[in-house]
């Protein structure tokens, strides 16, 4: 039976309950604590009203002001785009050649270009644009289609053999496959071409024959001096850079079967400002003319 009494030792009232002789002192919560607790409950109700709170069958209570964390993210992204927008507009308006003269715009273009390069170009050209066999190194000074800003810009826009109407287009004949040259003639031409770059050629190959074969078959595109022609996308064969390898077998393979790498056109995939930024980025990698 519950009986209220004052505990003799502490002077505190008991709760009036007794369990096997054990009594419980009644030490109620401080009043301020209780009121704080009630205030928190009221506050939490306010939360339900103001913010999205309760799940319904197919939706949820949206709250008074339509708060949504997703909308906050969207607003942040929009703010970032607006921030970039000003610079993007400046980039879009500025002539290609003038971009590199403005340090701030150059830094912006390179940063934009680096990001776009990583997303779009790195799979073939490598993250540092160092290229690999068949994919040109964009850091060096050897350009198939020209290394000026405008040439780079055009190549990125329309690609090479991409199917786009304005694409860089050429086709090296497959001299071996087509039967234009015999096997030993191909060896002679290959040896002659390699000798132009100062590479050692196999003993006993008739270089004079190779030179004549070159003049008859190759000089049309690559030039009499074999220095290539960027108008036609014909590589310079006298330098130290070999896109498909400069050893005897590779050169023979190239002459016999031809090469025709493909680069996509980006004009339909990327916006003009990004392509501009890419052109500046590639041009400033080091190889730009």
């Amino acid at each position: 039976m519950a009986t209220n009494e004052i505990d003799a030792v502490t002077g505190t009232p008991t709760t009036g309950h007794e369990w096997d002789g054990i009594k419980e002192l009644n030490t109620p919560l401080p009043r301020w604590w209780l009121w704080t607790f009630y205030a928190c409950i009221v506050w939490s109700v306010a939360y339900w009203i103001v913010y999205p709170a309760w799940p319904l069958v197919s939706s949820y209570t949206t709250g008074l002001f339509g708060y949504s964390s997703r909308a906050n993210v969207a607003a942040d992204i929009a703010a970032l785009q607006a921030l970039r927008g000003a610079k993007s507009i400046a980039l879009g308006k500025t002539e290609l050649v003038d971009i590199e003269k403005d340090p701030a715009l150059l830094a912006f273009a390179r940063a934009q270009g680096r990001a776009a390069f990583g997303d779009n170009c790195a799979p073939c050209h490598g993250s540092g644009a160092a290229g690999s066999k068949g994919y040109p190194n964009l850091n060096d000074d050897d350009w198939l289609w020209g290394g000026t800003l405008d040439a780079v810009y055009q190549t990125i826009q329309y690609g090479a053999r991409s199917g786009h109407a304005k694409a860089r287009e050429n086709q090296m004949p497959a001299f071996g496959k087509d039967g234009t040259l015999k096997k030993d003639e191909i060896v002679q031409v290959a040896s002659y071409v390699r000798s132009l770059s100062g590479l050692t050629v196999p003993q006993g190959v008739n270089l004079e024959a190779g030179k004549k074969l070159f003049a008859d078959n190759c000089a049309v595109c690559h030039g009499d001096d074999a220095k290539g022609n960027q108008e036609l996308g014909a590589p310079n064969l006298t330098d130290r850079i070999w896109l498909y390898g400069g050893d005897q077998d590779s050169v023979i393979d190239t002459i016999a079967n031809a090469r025709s790498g493909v680069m996509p056109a980006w004009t339909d995939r990327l916006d003009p400002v990004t392509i501009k930024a890419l052109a500046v980025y590639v041009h400033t990698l080091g190889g730009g003319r």
Partner: protein
Amino acid sequence: MVPPPMNVSVKPPVAALPEAPLYESAKKNYPQSVHGRFRTVKWVLMAVFLGIYYLLPFVRWDRGPNSPSQAVLVDIPNTRFYFFFIELWPQEVYYFTGLLVIAAMTLFLMNAVAGRIWCGYACPQTVWTDLFYAVERWIEGDRRERMLKAKAGLDARRVGELALKHGIWLTIAWWTGGAWVLYFADAPTLVKELATFEAPMVAYACIGILTFTTYTLAGHLREQVCIYMCPWPRIQAALTDEWALNVTYRWDRGEPRTSIKKAADLRSLGEKAGDCVDCLQCVAVCPTGVDIRDGSQLGCIQCGLCIDACDTVMAKVGRPFGLIAYDNDVNIERRLAGEAPVYRFIRARTLIYTGIIALVGAVMLYALSTRTLIDINVLHDRNPLFVSLSDGSTRNAYTIRFLNKRSDLRTIELSAAGVPIPTVHVIGEEPASRTIVAVGPDQTREVRVLITVPPAARIDKSNAITFTARDVDSGDTATATDHFFGP
């Protein structure tokens, strides 16, 4: 250690063990006003410290048209710290490490020489609490009056006094916060903005926070901060030794405590009477409420006010000064043994602390006097490490950042050495000036740089390369080393 004296008839007083419950609310202190040497020192130091703190932001220092003209300024948006003729950039934050080492060692040295004099004279908590006590005493009266008023109930006059006291406290606290924010922006401009409510929100928030902390710490918590919150008393106790001077009750002279009359009687009979007349003045003036006669203790901040109080009493009763003085237990023992007191300031620890202060100070001074206002940072391209060009030359690309710490535009010429015939090409510059970079006042500029070595040059797989940035006008140079990679 001095051997214990042989024929000692007096014993040091033993502090009574506290019998109070483990948890009790703090007893409020009502320190009495006091006059004397140490009080004067404290007033002067308070005026100096508060004067520096409140007025320093308004001191001007001309640094030219492109830099702020505030002598001491922490410019957070532009990440610069200005101190009179010194301007520090974020990467020079190690100077603050040096300052902190010197500060810690100075604190230790003070402690080795004279105990917690930092606490007693220079600690902001002490200075502001002292100021708040002065306000309280000025409005409510001295110790006895304040104790009586605290016991008596509230009447209109009392309410007025309290309102005035807290009003002045809050005003001082507000000024404290106000002066703080002035160190972070141009002071006169910010004062104007604050007055017209155009200042940034963070300024008001900082003032609010510091007003609150100053009012709470100096007005209400007071000695509780020193006794319970501050770590220094604990560290200090571990760092001290027997030679350090502390505010000491010379119990060899003071015990046994007797009344003036009884002491005179005893002395006329040729018996020993202590000089302490148990007037409790030392306790009454103590800002932390300790009884110094219980010996060195955690609550004592070494402010020396009890020395002033005791000397005043000694003058009245015609006994010599210095019953309480900066002294140590060694000398008490020596005097009891009939020996002359000794004071040792040159000890291993004071020498070591002084040595460290001198060493760190010298290193900092050297670094500061030889630091250049131009700098260069180099980062080699990671991919590709090198590029072979069509004519067989080898090229490496670098990202180079130039730092111009001067307040006017610099024209910097970049050169490279360490590999044969290097050609320097700064991307974005015209062919005629491919090695020249203009860097704006008090700014940095990052550029991409290509270094090309001709085909005939014989280079290793990895070669050390040194970049030199030279100010074309002044001739100042800065260098950085990196690598040049070859096939």
